[in-house]
Each structure stands twice: as structure tokens, then as C-alpha cells.
């Protein structure tokens, strides 16, 4: 199985001049249970640097749980995770953040009481060095730091074209823009790996097109590795390098889009015949 994957990757490299690199995250035999519910059963797959890796599967298959395992929100009962070859121990979400893993959420998890700008600034939290006492005065060091990071954040804002809503409280924004702000927050952390949980749900085609372009650009320009969960097969098949298919917590397919699309198990469990 592993050998097979490698071969596929090699063949799909190319498009847009991106170089798909080494495996940075290797998941081995992951199992996750909640009481009696088996969310994930013995799942193994890997993620390579710079690739766009999609996870698809029917509702309740365990996709979101998979992301939660990757960034340490859930702790699998069994299995091993290697990050850049190092086995992970005792993972907490903020450690994942420190390793450069950022993410967006299926049910938008923005900070509702804050403005767009503040939300995105929180993304830079890990990169800020000043402490409470600097902040209390807000002169000198703290202000310089704030401005420096503000510049970075403005870049992200420009990139995602959300200049006009900078100072709006996020709670009042329409759904699609909230998703975009969430992406901005994740990008502000300059992640090496970006986990996106249904970033395009509830968007129309036009907006999906925009979102795809952002994802591709991020991947292209910064070489960010992307893990994507999405139900729109058009999107998934068009932009992913490799796709993992889950069903009822089990892996039923893994490979480049074309291969997955034609996998009979996948068709039966997920795609249905109409596609």
C-alpha cells in the first residue's frame, strides 16, 4: 500500500511548479473511540510537504475527528503519529500550533465578540514576544511589535480581499465572509500545514471559486501543506493532489483524484452513481 502511494505521488507532481516533498506527517494505525462510538478505526496515511491532501467521506465518517487527531484536540487510543519523523507524545493543541499547524473549523469558530482585525491578530499570537507589562504601557516595544505584526496581518487581509470589513465585529458578518476570516486567522500564523474543515460549505460557486484560488495561491506561493475536507467533489477532484476516503471510521480509498473517483468502494459509499 505504502509503495503504491509513493508511486502515485511521483506521477502527480508537477502542476504549477510545486515540488511535493518529504512526508511530514505520518499517521499509523490510528484508532479513536468515544465510549461505544468508533470514530476512527485503524487508519494509516501520510501527508507530504507542499501537497494538497483531501479527506472525503460520508457524514459521520470521521473526517473532522481525523483533523482533531492531527492537531491534538483528540487523543487517539491507539496508533502513532510521526511529525517530521519524530513520534509525538502527549499532544496539546497549542503545541500543534507551535509546530506550525493551523486550521479552520467546520462550525465556524471565530471569536464572536472581536473585530475581524483582532481575530486575525490572534493568529499571530505565537509569534509575539511582549508580555503583559509591555502591553500595559503600550509604548515602545509593545507598540513596535504590534505594528510589525499588524503589517503581516494586513498582507493577509489584502491577500484575502477583506479590507473593507477590517473593523467589523465578526458576529455580524455573513457566513461566507466569516469562513474567509477564519482562513485569514489561520494564515496569519504563517503555518507550514493548514487544516481546512469544509471551508466551502454554504458558499455559492462564485465564492467557492474564490476560495479555491486562495487555497491554491497559499499552497503555491508559500508552499503550505494543505489538508482539506470538502463535500464538493468538483473542488476536491480539481485541486487535490491525493485524496483519502473514509467511511464509518475506516479508510476505504487513498490515492490521486482520478484513481479515487473510479474506486468502486468509494462510489458505493460516498459518491453515488449520479457523478
Amino acid at each position: 500500500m505504502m509503495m503504491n502511494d509513493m508511486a502515485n505521488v511521483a506521477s502527480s507532481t508537477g502542476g504549477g511548479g510545486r515540488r511535493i516533498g518529504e512526508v511530514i506527517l505520518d499517521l499509523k494505525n490510528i484508532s479513536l473511540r468515544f465510549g461505544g462510538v468508533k470514530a476512527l478505526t485503524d487508519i494509516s496515511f501520510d501527508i507530504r510537504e507542499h501537497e494538497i491532501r483531501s479527506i472525503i467521506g460520508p457524514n459521520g465518517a470521521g473526517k473532522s475527528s481525523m483533523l482533531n487527531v492531527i492537531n491534538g484536540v483528540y487523543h487517539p487510543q491507539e496508533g502513532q503519529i510521526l511529525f517530521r519523523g519524530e513520534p509525538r507524545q502527549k499532544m496539546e493543541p497549542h503545541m500543534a500550533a507551535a509546530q506550525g499547524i493551523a486550521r479552520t473549523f467546520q462550525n465556524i469558530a471565530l471569536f464572536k465578540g472581536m473585530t475581524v482585525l483582532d481575530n486575525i491578530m490572534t493568529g499571530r499570537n505565537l509569534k509575539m514576544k511582549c508580555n503583559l507589562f509591555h502591553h500595559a504601557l503600550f509604548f515602545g516595544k509593545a507598540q513596535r511589535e504590534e505594528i510589525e505584526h499588524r503589517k503581516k496581518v494586513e498582507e493577509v487581509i489584502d491577500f484575502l480581499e477583506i479590507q473593507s470589513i477590517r473593523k467589523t465585529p465578526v458576529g455580524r458578518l455573513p457566513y461566507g465572509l466569516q469562513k474567509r476570516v477564519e482562513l485569514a486567522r489561520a494564515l496569519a500564523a504563517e503555518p507550514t500545514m493548514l487544516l481546512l474543515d469544509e471551508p466551502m460549505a454554504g458558499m455559492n460557486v462564485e465564492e467557492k471559486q474564490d476560495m479555491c484560488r486562495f487555497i491554491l495561491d497559499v499552497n503555491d506561493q508559500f508552499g503550505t501543506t494543505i489538508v482539506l475536507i470538502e463535500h464538493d467533489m468538483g473542488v476536491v477532484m480539481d485541486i487535490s493532489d491525493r485524496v483519502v476516503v473514509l467511511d464509518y471510521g475506516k479508510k476505504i480509498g487513498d490515492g490521486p483524484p482520478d484513481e479515487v473517483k473510479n474506486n468502486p468502494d468509494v462510489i458505493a459509499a460516498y459518491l453515488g452513481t449520479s457523478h
Partner: protein
Amino acid sequence: MGFFFEVLIGGLLSGVLYALVALGFVLIYKASGVFNFAQGAMVFFAALTFVGFQEVLPGWTGLEPGSIAVFWMAFVLALASMVVLGILTEKVVLRPLVNQPHITLFMATIGLTFLVEGIAQAIWGNHVRGLDLGIADEPIEWVLDSADIIVSKFDVFAATLAGILVASLALFFQYTKVGRALRAVADDHQAALSIGIPLQHIWAIVWAVAGFVALVAGLIWGARSGVQFALTFTALKALPVLILGGFTSVPGAIVGGLIIGASEKLAEVYIGPFVGGGIEGWFPYMLALLFLLVRPEGLFGEKHIDRV
């Protein structure tokens, strides 16, 4: 050893009385997600209304003061007042605040506290009254004789009453349509509205039931320590019970009450002397805090669902 049991049993019985007050909180929390700060004031209001009617009824009707008839008439009138209070609360306070953050509703119930206290005292005056339920607060003799342990008749009566209330409310919440709707409302006001649950009725019902529970608690506590403003403080005894048992659990109120009651009394007797006593004020809270560290939603409370 006899002394130990005496303290233990006394504590358990007191605990049930705390549970009686806690129950009112649970009801309203379960049905609207609101922490009803006014519960203590409602206990006071109920008891005061009851004795108030007891005082004026003989004059109105010519019945013998202290007769059974007066008792029950006063009870019915007080209950009616509590129902009216519940309905008004829904109309005036809650309805305009649907779907607001819980802290806002919490604050509104604080406003309600002042309102209820003010109204109660404006109507009935603020002097202290006695209240006699006709059940003597004295030891059950055969227990005293055989084991030399004091078990008060009154406390046993109160505990039985509390037990019946708790059992019936627990069944109501778990198995009836309205009970289910109540729990739904607590989770999401707006979604409840969207499927046609009439929040207004539901809340009016719950507040009325909470009013009834407050009346029972008010009578029991009023009989123990007089009908006076201090009845509002019974809430302070109920709060640790509440968090220990879980805000959302009716049986939790009883279990929490038993644990708090027994341990606070034992602590006062066995630990108190070493630190100068008077630890009953904070000990239950500390104890509850320790429990919460292990189970943050209380023993029987609903888990806080926190998913991404």
C-alpha cells in the same frame, strides 16, 4: 460513635432541606438555561404571602385563626400568588429577553430579586413572624430512647416531602413531552422557537412550578427559623448543593444536598474546633469546588459540549 451518627443524620436531614431550595434553581435552569438568582427571594415571597394570608384571612372570612381551613386557604392563595408571579415574570422579564446571553438573563433575575423583595415587604410589612405547620420539631422518641440519637420529626417530614417532590419532578422532566420541551429550550431558545415550542407557556409553567417549590421550601424553612428576610439566604445554602449535584439534575439536587449537609456538619464538629469554627459558611463551597475539579459539570449535570 453515637455522637458521630447523630451529627451525620442531622446533617443528612439538613441537606435535604437545602436540596428543597436547590430544586427551584434546577427547575428554572433546566428549562431556560437561566440561573435564577431570585429563587431565594421567591422563597421569602412565598412564605411571607402565606403567613400574610394566614393573618388576614380570619378577618376577611370570620374563620377561626389557626384553623385547618385557614391554613389551606392561605396555602391556595399563596400558591396562586406564586403562579401569578411566575406568569408575570415570563411576560415582563423573560419574553423581551429571549435569546439573550445567559449573563443578561441572570442579571435580569437579580433585578427581579429586588422587585420581589420590595413587593413582598411593601404588601405584608417586614416584621418577623412565626409559622407553625403543626409538626413538632422534636426528637422521635423511640429513636432517642433506643439509640440516644436525635432525629427530628419535623426534619423527617420535610425530607419525605422533598423526596416526593424530587421524584415526581425527575419523572416529569425525563418522560413527558413538556419535560422534553423544557430541556430543549434550555439548549437553544431560537431552535425551540423555530419548531413551535411556545417559550411563553413553557416558561410560565416552569416559573409557576418553581414558585410552588419555593412555597414548599418557604413553609419548611419558615417554620424552622421564622418568616423573615433571612429566608432569602437559604439560597446561599442551596448553591453548593446545586453545583455539586449539577445544575441540570433533579436527583442531583438531593444527592448533592445529602453530601453537603452531612459533610458540612461533620466538618464543623470535627475540623471546626482546630481552626476556630464557623467554617460552615465556606466549607460547602470548597467541598463542591473539589468535586468540580474532578467532574466540572457536577455529579449528575449535563456535560458541557465543547466540540470543534
